[in-house]
């Protein structure tokens, strides 16, 4: 009898210690980095391609599960005080930088106060309330805030706020540091080499602090400029993973029929891209609220989604994305119909005093298009037809990126600009910059170029950023969305759905809300 128990126990023990057969270690993942990142300094730039590679090398304090709840990364636990003014992080033990030095709370303090708050595009606003960080011991970091900042806890992913090594950056010019081309982090993969124009190679970090991970041997980010070639490489199995529309939608429609290839829209909930129209609210004809409302009523949002983006997208129903619903901040408002209401639009235009001349033209303007791809040209062509039907004649303008950025954000030489903005994990980080009066900063891209200024809204936005209580915050943003639905300095068209196309052999790549911008430590290749 005893012998049987011992045998059973031994058998059970051996089962418990055998790794799950489903997860296989080894293999090289080849992913697409399009366009090629300029550097790997994710602490200086939020450029998308950098985000595809850098979070494999650097870790953040937290990550977020698919329901947007914070889960521990370098900070295995955290507490926010009742008054919201103190946030304490307990850090993981035994974490080493890739050069062997230990990771401590001093690195956290240095990263936030000396690097992100100073140089990161969003750092100064994400960490605006952090007045100091205490480090009572190497595994504890205490953030002291001036006012509560409920959005800050959402800005701590490896992509948004990577932890960088104090011992390599202290005393140096952060912007010139060699770390940008030779990154050293705490992440599951070490930087090995970068052949410009070809690939970036990352090898497995043998001393990664998470036991048993990462599973992959190597990650290689390949640069392939031509869209059709990327599709061919995916079909051929030369490339296993392409995110952020690396494979054009038109090819996705064909590829998703292939059993060896999978497609998902998951993993972009912290990005929240919104396709929209920005207006110059200082000049006719778009200085009139009624005219802007008319434009919003005329656009066939569903048509855009179905025919130009091949079904991937959700019509906008408010100034905020519906992805904020788990946070309770989103509410659907009027003036964003999924299908057009032409009579109402015409009535509004008549009311605004824009009478049609002999040819039926009420007004004419130039529509600038974001030069990020062919779909935007098609969308522009559609807008020209749709607005032409109600008498607003549009001329399309499609330039290259620096010309477009300078024209719209520096010279303010535009009437309507078709664009897309990331609303990011919290409206304070991604949405306020579009509507707040203090964000009218000439020469700075992707802020309030409409020059819309509403003091009532400004007050609400400030309140929304310092209110901890979820109910109260929801009420504030309900009013914000109500005001913006009337004023419409920016007409939201639809919530974009970026696509991740992957080889079915690759598993566990989209297990957190950060998706393509996550560390891939749990990803593995099945044989």
């Amino acid at each position: 009898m005893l012998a049987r128990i011992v045998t059973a126990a031994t058998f059970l023990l051996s089962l418990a210690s055998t790794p799950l057969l489903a997860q296989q270690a080894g293999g090289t993942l080849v992913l697409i980095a399009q366009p090629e990142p300029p550097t790997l300094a994710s602490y200086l730039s939020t450029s998308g391609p950098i985000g595809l590679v850098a979070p494999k090398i650097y870790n953040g304090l937290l990550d977020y599960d698919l329901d947007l709840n914070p889960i521990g990364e370098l900070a295995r636990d955290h507490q926010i005080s009742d008054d919201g003014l103190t946030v304490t992080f307990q850090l993981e033990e035994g974490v080493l930088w890739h050069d062997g030095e230990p990771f401590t709370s001093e690195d956290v303090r240095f990263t936030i106060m000396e690097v992100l708050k100073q140089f990161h595009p969003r750092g100064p606003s994400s960490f605006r309330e952090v007045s100091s960080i205490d480090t009572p011991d190497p595994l504890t970091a205490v953030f002291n805030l001036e006012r509560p900042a409920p959005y800050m806890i959402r800005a701590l992913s490896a992509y948004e706020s990577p932890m960088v090594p104090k011992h390599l950056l202290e005393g140096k010019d952060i912007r010139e540091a060699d770390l940008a081309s030779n990154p050293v982090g705490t992440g599951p993969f070490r930087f090995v080499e970068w052949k410009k124009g070809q690939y970036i190679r990352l090898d497995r970090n043998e001393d990664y602090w998470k036991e048993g991970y990462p599973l992959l041997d190597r990650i290689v980010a390949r640069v392939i400029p031509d869209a059709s070639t990327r599709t061919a490489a995916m079909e051929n199995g030369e490339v296993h993973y392409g995110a952020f529309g690396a494979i054009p939608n038109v090819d996705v429609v064909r590829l998703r029929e292939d059993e060896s290839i999978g497609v998902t829209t998951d993993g972009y909930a912290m990005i929240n891209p919104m396709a929209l129209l920005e207006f110059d609210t200082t000049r006719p004809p778009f200085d009139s609220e009624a005219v802007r409302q008319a434009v919003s009523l005329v656009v066939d949002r569903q048509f855009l989604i179905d025919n130009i983006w091949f079904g991937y997208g959700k019509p906008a129903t408010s100034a905020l994305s519906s992805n904020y619903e788990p946070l309770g901040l989103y509410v659907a408002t009027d003036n964003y119909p999924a299908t057009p209401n032409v009579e109402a639009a015409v009535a509004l235009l008549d009311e605004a005093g824009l009478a049609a001349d002999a040819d039926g033209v009420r007004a004419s303007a130039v529509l600038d298009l974001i030069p990020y791809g062919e779909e935007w040209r098609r969308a522009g062509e559609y807008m020209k037809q749709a607005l032409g039907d109600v008498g607003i004649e549009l001329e399309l303008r499609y330039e290259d990126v620096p010309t477009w950025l300078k024209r719209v954000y520096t010279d303010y030489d535009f009437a309507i600009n078709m664009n897309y903005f990331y609303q990011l994990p919290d409206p304070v980080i991604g949405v306020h910059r579009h509507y707040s009066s203090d964000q009218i900063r000439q020469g700075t891209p992707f802020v309030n170029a409409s020059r819309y200024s509403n003091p009532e809204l400004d007050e609400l936005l400030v309140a929304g950023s310092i209110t901890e209580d979820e109910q109260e915050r929801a009420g504030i943003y309900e009013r914000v969305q109500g005001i913006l639905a009337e004023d419409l300095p920016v007409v939201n068209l639809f919530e974009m759905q970026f696509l991740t196309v992957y080889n079915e052999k690759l598993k566990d790549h989209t297990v957190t809300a950060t998706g393509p911008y996550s560390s891939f430590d749990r990803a593995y290749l099945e044989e």
Partner: protein
Amino acid sequence: MTLAARRVRYVLKRLLQAVPVVLAIVVVNFFLLQLAEGDAVDVLAGEAGSATPEYMAQLREKFGLDQPLVVQLAVYVKNMLMLDLGYSFRHDMPVAQLVLDRLVPTLLLMVCTILVAVGLGIVLGLLAASGLNTWRDNLISVFALVSYATPLFWVGLMMIVVFSLNLGWFPTSGMENVAMFHEGWDRVKDIAHHLVMPVITLSLFYLALYTRLMRASMLEQAGMDYVTTARAKGLTERRIVFVHILRNALLPVLTMAGVQIGALIGGSVIVESVFAWPGLGMLAFEALFARDLNLLLGIFLLSALLVVAINLVIDLLYSFLDPRIEVG
């Protein structure tokens, strides 16, 4: 003065003449690039997601973009004369290093393309001319026409579809297999394997030109008096064609090749884009959209030097091919 000494003096004279030419090219390019709206700081700020006006002003100061144009040009020319090609702020690397890294893949692609295009073009032209108006001639002429008329990117993509996706004989793109990291001889074979389709695609277009040119040139030479004389002397057809006509017919082809090699850096952008080949053409193309002026000027300089050198080599080759052409 001996022929060799004359040649050497000629080369030196040409090299000296090249200096003001190259300088003029750089100056003109510098001003041309200024015509493009927006600058590198706009691009960096746009990519970073946002930037404060203060940061952008700081960057402009660091890049030297806030200086008046003439000062910027003077600084650049001064550096150039000291063989310092400047720094690419976008890539965070010296321009010289960026260009050097891409030089080998570019040369590989260019040299192989020229060898295939010129070599095969000469052979096909020869075959066509010697079998005038037979099915051989017609086949070759039609082939030349079709390959000239078909757009390069379409040919490239179709080759990928047929030979990579359907037949699986070649990889779709890139210079090497990034998942394998071959070493030594394996690496050479791997690169050669990746080189086949880009070279065929790029050379198809130029091949057509050389075929037609060679054919026309051969036919022109075949009608000359010296050929009749040679035949009267009793020389074999073979000797007439390969020793006499060929040497004379090659001259126009050589001229054409010289002109086109210079254009090859720019002309290869499409093939480099379709096949993800890490060459200078693609680097220049991207540098333009990123307004990376230092890098662009560096590539233009290299291109100008290359054209000057190639023209010199071609002129020297003439004198070897045809003793009637004197140098110096």
